[in-house]
């Protein structure tokens, strides 16, 4: 048996002398041709887009470099002019102060403006190159530009959410509100949800589902906060109302026994 198998394997000709199926060859060839054409198309697309991608990165790198240089120059000039001291004397920034000095802030803003400019010019170059190099249409490009706006929205929203959350937390703690942390969290998430909805809207993702979900979430958070504050202050409100009703209805009560005087603390 083994020798028979070995003999069969050594044979050049097929074991079964079936007649050749000529159409089989044409299908394979057609598949191969189709694959080659597809590969060629994708490669030519990539080759067409590649200059655009390269232009995008070059524009970004060049503008980032220019931004770095100009920002360093600005920082040097402003430090020489004692810009921080002048701003402090002018009294600006008393209500809202960034986490850096005005000089550092100006330099940083300049740098990021240049980076943004590079991004816009890069995307524009990519767009031009792509439009020339290909006849295909797909919807990636609008997202590249829209995503920049969405990212900025997210960053701004997160900063505002953090600022407001801290303001509410500190104010509520100093006012001795027992639900201070809850209130702060509520405000933070309100702003974050609003920001997320705006970013998704900007990216054209979700459509009416986002609006609906945002409405439900926002309304839910507001209702939760209102309930929490209302329930938390229930006793306070009822005491206030009771004292008001009692004052108007009841006869004046006899004077209470004298309590020891409390020293007043004068902070200033």
């Amino acid at each position, binding site marked *: 048996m083994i020798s028979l198998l070995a003999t069969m394997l050594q044979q050049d000709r097929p074991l079964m002398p079936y007649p050749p199926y000529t159409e089989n060859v044409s299908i394979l060839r057609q598949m191969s041709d189709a694959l080659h054409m597809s590969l060629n198309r994708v490669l030519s697309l990539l080759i067409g887009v590649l200059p655009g991608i390269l232009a995008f990165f070059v524009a970004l790198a060049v503008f980032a470099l220019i931004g770095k240089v100009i920002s360093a120059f600005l920082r040097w000039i402003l430090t020489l002019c004692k810009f921080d001291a002048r701003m402090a004397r002018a009294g600006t920034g008393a209500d*809202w102060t960034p986490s850096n000095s005005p000089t550092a802030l100006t330099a940083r803003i300049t740098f990021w403006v240049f980076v943004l400019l590079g991004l816009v010019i890069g995307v524009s170059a990519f767009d031009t190159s792509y439009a020339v190099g290909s006849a295909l249409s797909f919807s990636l490009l609008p997202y590249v530009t829209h995503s920049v706006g969405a990212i900025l929205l997210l960053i701004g929203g997160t900063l505002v959410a953090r600022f407001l959350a801290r303001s509410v937390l*500190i104010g509520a703690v100093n006012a001795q509100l027992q639900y201070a942390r809850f209130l702060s969290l509520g405000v933070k998430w309100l702003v974050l949800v609003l920001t997320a909805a705006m970013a998704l809207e900007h990216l054209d993702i979700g459509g009416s589902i986002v609006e609906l979900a945002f409405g439900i979430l926002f309304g839910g958070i507001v209702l939760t906060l209102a309930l929490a504050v209302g329930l938390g202050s229930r006793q306070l409100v009822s005491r206030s109302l009771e004292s008001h009703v009692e004052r108007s209805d009841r006869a004046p009560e006899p004077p209470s026994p004298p309590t020891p005087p409390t020293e007043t*603390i004068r902070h200033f």
Partner: protein
Amino acid sequence: MASADSISELSSPSPPPVTGLLVIVPAMLPENLEVLLNNLAVVFPGEGLLVATESPAPALVPAGLRIVAAPPWGSGWSLTAADFLHAWGLAQEHQARAILLLGPGADSLGAGALRLLANGVLAGSVDLAVPRYVLPPHAGMINSAILYPLTRALFATRVRFPAAIDLGLSPRMPQQLAAAAQRTAGDPEAMLWPVNEAAVAGFAIEEFDVGARALPQPADADINPILARVTGSLFADIEMKAAYWQRARRVPPARRAPAEAPRVDGAADVTRMVESFHFAYSNLLEIWSLVLPPYSLLGLKHLSQMSALEFRMPDSLWARIVYDFLVAYRLRTINRGHLLGALIPLYLGWVAGHINLTVAGTSAEAHIEAVAAAFEADKPYLVSRWRWPDRFNA
């Protein structure tokens, strides 16, 4: 004995004579103004004293006093940039040799106090005469906790009330203060720190015991805006004068301590302040940890476990906290409004500890001096953090 100079007579276009002492008085009730004028007449008989006030002159002005009209000013509980500009304008207009700037409620100052403040500057040996008030117990807490210790440690002066509202000024002192006021032109209500200005300018400062005085209080008793305004202003001034105070300077030796005000029966509401601190500890720890190093946070943790009766904030811990907040103010670690808001519960904790100590028998003044000494001892820490803040973040 009495004359009735009218304001219209005094505002004639002829060049003003050189005035010895110019007393600037804010608006006050006629009866209070009368008391003050009588005190001045007793102290400076026949010296041709010039009094500038926006209040209408009383019918009977004591002899030797001249009243001139002054625009509205100084109606608040602290002296502002606008007040000093106003004083400088009046001093120039009347070519005064010395100025006595009095705050609201100055009629409660005794005649001797007025003489002490004026004589120093009239003699020419002092540029800034500052009063040392005797206040009721548990009054002027921000001054005792923050203003006095910081001013003493950084500007090497023992002036007990750096934010005093009655000042004696030599002719060059209003000029210095007006220059400082012009730097804050954006906010005429900004507070100025005359002691700091005088120290930086190298002017002579002298403190005089003036006894008890009724200090005007802010209309809104809420501590939040008061602490934020006063502390924020002092922090900003310290930031501006960093080149001066970073040098080591010897604080002048202590003077004889003035008699303390008699104690009042009854206890202050310490429990509420301690509860406020505990509540803040459970909520603001995240924000405090952005400003304070682990050592201070550990100290606060120990404090959070103390009951109201045993609550004491160690002097060294309080000094570190204030210094760390000052550095965070400079570095803008967090928003400055948030920073000063986060300081309030810590300050209330200090006040609670201070009251507990005084109730236990410690002299209030002795404790305040100990706190100031702790600030002095820890000044190298502030200087190091100021110069190399990142070294402490590792």
